C-alpha cells in the first residue's frame, strides 16, 4: 500500500472554553487507520500542543469519544473509511460538554448527573450476609442485562438534543444506569431513585428521538431504558393516588 503518497484533509477544532476555530492538517493515509490514529499522528508529527484524551485504544475505557464529521463516535474503534466525508475528516470535541482544551472536554456534569439520577448501588445487605441469589432468567435480570456494559463514553449525551436544549436534563447514560439499578433485586434505594428521575430534568423530558441508541458504540438502547423509567414512575404515580 502506498499510504505515504496519499493524504487526507483533516480539520481539527482548536481552542478552549472561551472559543476557538478549526485548524487544517494534511495527514497520511494508512491501512486500517482509526480516527484516533489520525489525531495521534497530528499530535506526534504536526503539532505537539494538540490536547485530546484516550487511554485503552480498544473500546473499553470510554475516554476517546469525539465528534467526527458531526457525529459522536468512539475514535479508537472508528475506521476512517466509515467516517470520511468527501475524502476528509472534521474532528471536534464531544457536543454538549464544556471544552477544556482542543478535543478534551470537561465531563464533570456528565458524571455528576449519574449521581443525581441515583445511579449508585444502594445495597440491601451487608458483607456479613449470605450472597443473594439472582435468577439469570428472571424478568428483572433480563431488563438489567440489556442496560449494562455502558463504558461512560458520553456519546449518547453528545447525540441528545434534549441535553442540548435543557442543561438540567440528566441525559441518556445516567437514566440508563438508573434503569439498570431499578432492575437490581439487591438494591434497596428504589423509592429515592424513582423520585430522582422524576424531578425537573428527569426521564420525562425525553422525546424518544433515539439518537442515543443510534450512536451508542455498545449497541445499548437508553431510549428503551428511559421508556421503562417513564412506565415505572407513571405506575407509581397512579398507584399512590388510587
Amino acid at each position, binding site marked *: 500500500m502506498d499510504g505515504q503518497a496519499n493524504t487526507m484533509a483533516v480539520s481539527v477544532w482548536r481552542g478552549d472554553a472561551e472559543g476557538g476555530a478549526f485548524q487544517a492538517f494534511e495527514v497520511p493515509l494508512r491501512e486500517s487507520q482509526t480516527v484516533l490514529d489520525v489525531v495521534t499522528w497530528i499530535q506526534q508529527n504536526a503539532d505537539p500542543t494538540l490536547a485530546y484524551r484516550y487511554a485503552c485504544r480498544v473500546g473499553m475505557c470510554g475516554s476517546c469519544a469525539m465528534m467526527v464529521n458531526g457525529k459522536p463516535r468512539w475514535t479508537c474503534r472508528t475506521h476512517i473509511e466509515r467516517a470520511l466525508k468527501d475524502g476528509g475528516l472534521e474532528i471536534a470535541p464531544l457536543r454538549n460538554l464544556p471544552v477544556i482544551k482542543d478535543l478534551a472536554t470537561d465531563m464533570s456534569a456528565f458524571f455528576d448527573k449519574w449521581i443525581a439520577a441515583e445511579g449508585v448501588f444502594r445495597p440491601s445487605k451487608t458483607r456479613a450476609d449470605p450472597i443473594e441469589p439472582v435468577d439469570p432468567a428472571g424478568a428483572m435480570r433480563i431488563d438489567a442485562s440489556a442496560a449494562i456494559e455502558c463504558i461512560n463514553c458520553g456519546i449518547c449525551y453528545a447525540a441528545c438534543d434534549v441535553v442540548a436544549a435543557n442543561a438540567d436534563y440528566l441525559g441518556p447514560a445516567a437514566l440508563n444506569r438508573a434503569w439498570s439499578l431499578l432492575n437490581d433485586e439487591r438494591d434497596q434505594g428504589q423509592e429515592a431513585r424513582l423520585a430522582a428521575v422524576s424531578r*425537573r430534568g*428527569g426521564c420525562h*423530558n425525553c422525546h424518544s428521538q433515539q439518537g442515543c441508541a443510534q450512536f451508542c458504540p455498545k449497541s445499548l438502547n437508553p431510549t428503551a431504558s428511559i421508556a421503562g423509567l*417513564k412506565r415505572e414512575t407513571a405506575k407509581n*404515580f397512579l398507584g399512590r393516588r388510587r
Partner: protein
Amino acid sequence: MLDLRLYMLQRLSALILAPLVLGHIAVMIYAVQDGLSAAEILGRTQGSWAWALFYGLFVLAVSVHAAIGLRVIVAETLKLRGLGLAAFTWLVFLGLLFLGARAVYAVTAA
C-alpha cells in the same frame, strides 16, 4: 420543564384525545362531502347534549395538551424558564379553554 405531574397530564390528555380525534376526523370526512354550510353544521350540533359533551371534553383535553406541548417548545427553543414559563403555560391553557368553550357553546346551544 416536564416533571412527573406535567408528564402524566400530557399523556392522560393524549389518551383522552386519541379516540376524540379519530371521531373528529371521521366527522370531517363525512361532513365535507357536499361542501360545508353553517346550516348543516348547526343542524347536527345545535341542542345536542352528546355533541356538547364530545366537543366539551375535546376542548378541555386539547387545552391541557397544547399548553404543555407549547411549554416544552418555548422552554427548549426560547430558553424560557421559571415563573415566565409557568405563566405562559397557564395563559395558553386558559386562553384555549375560553375560546374553545365559547365555540362549543356557539355551535351546540339550542
